[in-house]
């Protein structure tokens, strides 16, 4: 699991960790039952304050993505994949909302936005096929 932290992108660092772990689970890079690095290991690995990592792991436990396995550390929950795919879709939805709002603010009509979206979607589907 590789995490990329950018202190300047406006999202709190702990939240960046939470999101990226969820993405990794949704993608299958992290599989259910797999152990994640300890707080200290991850802190060293990505040079981020251990309390920040602790907070991210706490959040991931509250979201039932990670569970503590006594004496061994934290592992990905059996049931996490579905949840993470869902969370990922929610995040995507949020980003789409922002784009749509920006489009409307910039003076585009809903119909124009729609055709723009469909055009981009078509293009993306084409490159996906290739």
């Amino acid at each position, binding site marked *: 699991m590789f995490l990329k*932290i950018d*202190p*300047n992108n*406006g999202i*709190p*660092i*702990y939240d960046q960790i939470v999101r990226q772990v969820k993405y990794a689970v949704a993608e299958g890079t992290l599989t259910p039952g797999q152990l994640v690095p300890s*707080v*200290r290991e991850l*802190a*060293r690995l990505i*040079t*981020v*304050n*251990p*309390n*920040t990592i602790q*907070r991210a792991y706490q959040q991931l436990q509250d979201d039932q993505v990670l569970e503590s396995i006594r004496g061994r550390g934290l592992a990905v929950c059996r049931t996490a994949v579905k949840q993470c795919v869902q969370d990922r879709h929610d995040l995507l939805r949020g980003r789409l909302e922002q784009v749509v709002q920006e489009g409307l603010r910039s003076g585009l009509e809903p119909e124009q936005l729609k055709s723009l979206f469909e055009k981009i979607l078509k293009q993306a589907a084409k490159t996906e096929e290739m």
Partner: protein
Amino acid sequence: MEPSTISIKGLSKRFGKNLVLRDVELQIPAGCVYALLGENGAGKTTLIRTIMGYVKPNSGSISVLGISPQNDPFALRRRVGYVSDLPALYDWMSVKQIAWFCSAFYSSSYSENFGRWATQFDLPQETRIRHLSKGMRAKTALALVLASDPELLVFDEPTSGLDPLVRKEFLRSMVDLAAQGKTVLLSSHQVQEVERVADHVAILHDGKIALDGGLEQLKDTVCMLRFSMRDPLATPPASVLNLNSFHCEVLGRTIQMAVRHLSPEVLEQIKSESELMDVQWIRPSLEELFILCTRQSQAPPWEKPWNTKSPGGELLRA
């Protein structure tokens, strides 16, 4: 509340006519990475040297690990590791010799510890200090300090002038020390680095603490509000006047304010005001907070000259 590792009250220091530290108050909790941010000349180094007992303050009190640095500097230095930005090392000694020299001041495990760090940092044991690169010298100084296994580590601008790899090594050791429950105090103007490794910050400006607190709390409680006035000469609505703002900038009819504890209800109210256009708000990054604290605040246009309440003059604590 955890006990404070460093407790500073009413500290002032004057060099000749120059007041370098003004009434500094600081509580540094145990087990945190505490970053002291400030421009060049803000007083960071003087504050750190006062904490280490190298500089005597004109007034105020300091307690570090329960020790007074003025009364008992030697007891303090045995328990605190200090890495200055220009480490003074005897440059005619080899790395091995200087480790042997330092080991006399500490417990018997010092040499063994140093060996471990030297291997980790790839230090050439037989090379004289004089022949080391700046990065290697810095790593030698760090290894010498880490080998004494101090409870508190104090870094003065640890990463300035170092290449990204050495820099990473320094940051990694700070993070690792924090994970072991030790306290780290560092001064820096590298905001990005601080944002990663620190959990508490204090911004020092002109010898005064302009802002301090937990990094997350600071970012959660402060918000930047930007709006334009339809009529730049009118008095804005009460919802704006009653804001708890501590910094203000005016650019034509656009006004940007730094506001504490902006509730969603008040924000909605401001968005709905007919006199205001284009209301935006953001959570500032540490860099924006830093720039905010080091820049002069302007009086908003509706504040009459005789209303001399300075929005930037008061302290902000989260």
